[in-house]
């Protein structure tokens, strides 16, 4: 193979035709309220861990639907529960995170 000094790079496009949402679906089965997240960002704005890391529950829920790695975000959660206090859709976000910890299988 010829060395050209550069190579093909992987596309960053999210392809919904092929994206694997098994984990998200499993989460929705266990925590149906995951579906009603409207990505308002209240959780991230109030998140204790957010100022020290990339934790954002809004992004986690979305990333699961796009089959992106949520581990770096999730593992920084401190379970302080402020997100649950502020969620306008009254999602039990804290339990949702614990459920994710449980079912995470990547």
């Amino acid at each position, binding site marked *: 193979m010829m060395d050209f000094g550069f190579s093909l790079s992987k596309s960053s496009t999210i392809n919904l035709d092929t994206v694997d949402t098994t984990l998200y679906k499993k989460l929705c089965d266990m925590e149906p309220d995951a579906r009603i997240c409207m990505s308002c960002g209240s959780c991230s704005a*109030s998140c*204790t861990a957010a100022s*020290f890391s990339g934790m954002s529950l809004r992004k986690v829920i979305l990333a699961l639907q796009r089959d992106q790695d949520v581990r770096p975000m999730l*593992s920084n959660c*401190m379970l302080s529960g402020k997100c649950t206090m502020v969620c306008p859709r009254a999602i*039990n976000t804290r*339990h949702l995170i*614990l459920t994710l910890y449980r079912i995470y*299988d990547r």
Partner: protein
Amino acid sequence: MIDRIPSGFHPFVLPFLFGMIFVLSYCLFGIVRILWQLPKQDVRKFLLSLINPKIIVKNVWEIFRDCLIHVKLWKRNKLLGYMHSSIAFGWFMIILLGHIEVFLFVPNRIHMFYYPIFFNYFVAEGPDMTIQGSLLMFLMDFFLLIILSGIVLAMIKRVHSRFFGMRRTARPSLLNQIGLYALWAIFPLRLLAESFTAHISGGSFLTIPANWIFRQFLGNDLNMLPTWWAYSIALCVFMCVLPFTRYMHIPAEMMLIPMRNAGIKIRDSRKGFAKLQVYSCPNCGVCIDACPMSVNRGNLKDCTVYLTRQMRRGNEKRIEEISDKCLLCGKCHTVCQVQVEGPQLRIMERSRRHYNLSPDYSNIDTQPLTETASHGKVLYFSGCMSQLTPAIGQSVESILKKAGVDYVWMDRDGGLCCGRPLLTAGRAEAAKELMHKNEEIILGSGADTLLVSCPICYKMFTEEYHLPGIRVVHYSHYFSELVQQDKIRLEKSDLCYVFHDPCELGRGCGIYDEPRKLIGKSASIAEAEKNREESICCGGSLGSLTLSFAQREEMTRAALDNLYTSRADAIATACPLCLATFARYSDRPVRDLAEIIDAQSSSTQKENQ
């Protein structure tokens, strides 16, 4: 008193003997197993405590107080207290007196340990009727009467619990019912048996008249044996089902008290001390009424009494549900007669859970926090929840400024969590990681005092953190000192507050009086119907993992209704979570302690200078 039967034996004692041997060996086996499951250092601790005279006295006193007299129950409900202590203490006395009788009159039979139980069958009244003998006979009848009165009350309670002021009791299972009826049967049967034998063995004010009455129309001699048989069988039944019923709490509690006094903690929800606690639960159901979740008859089966029951049954699904739902407000523990640690059991149950993903805070950079912290003598830690209630931090800061304190607010722009939410969620390892980081920041700050306003954090800092050389102080104490030292002065407003004891502050840390004193100096104060140890959780607790927003709302409203009974103008509390939760539904203002003090305080700094 003389031995009536030369062999000192009759087959009717066999059922009793069987039951007795069964229950004793069961308990022995249980004790061995529990000790086996305890970590080595705990076993050592326990065994050492058994030879510590102070602890021995304490153990004996507490067993007498809690297992026999049920002092706590008396305090809570006189009728219930009487019912329990009449049966327990009465029975104990009957057994004790039986032994005294054997010891006094037929000391050669003392090794036959059924003798004290069936004493009246085996002896005949001698010609030399003694004062001792008749006094003992009298006491026997007296305590039997006491017990019987207790049994009557128990029967009434069974049919009509409201009579006892109890709204709910735990529903007994079939085995428990058998145990219950066997227990009820023991004492009337004993009365019958002793009555039928009274003309031989003698008796007192109960048994002799009964004997006389029976003899009017029954051949007592014929009925004598069957009643003794029945008595023995009832005892046997009771003892055989005992390990599988709530009555197990009788032997278990006697073990529990010394173990608790030895300082043993729950380390595993399924083993050792936890197991003992589970078996010590008398299923009395006091925790049901106490539980804030049981508002509007909801979540009735999620109280601690059901947790211990499901743990005995091994119903994993229900154990998980019950463990996760609880607010961990600690009220069940407070009201519990045997002090079953419902919250701790649940936390340890949560800790058993397997997670595929674990928190990892190694990438967190604490440098900015460390820098912030290194400027004052007093470190103020407001806690992460207070970011949702900024008034607390601002008020604390304002008070500190008025008092001229050299302070720094270490988590003004957000800090690390204290770790309590993780701990209560059963993730102790992760909590430790955060604690280490906080410890590093605090110890490295050069401050000598850590001032904490959030009771959740305060509990954590005082109980779990290792902060040598640092005084961890709750702001209620600290502000009281500032008042005492005349660094700030409080002026009374004409408002009337009712103070809501936050769970973590009151039941959690035992702080009840300081906030009240401070509020009392700043305003007038009223008390709610349920307060202090009996305070009702606001419903916002992080303890619960699964309660939904709507379910919590009901609890909050119930807690508010309790506070409204005080007819105060406003609600005071000392917890950001309570503040935020109450503020959502309260019809009157809700203020944090710091806000009240800040509003009513003035600086004395200028004068002092």
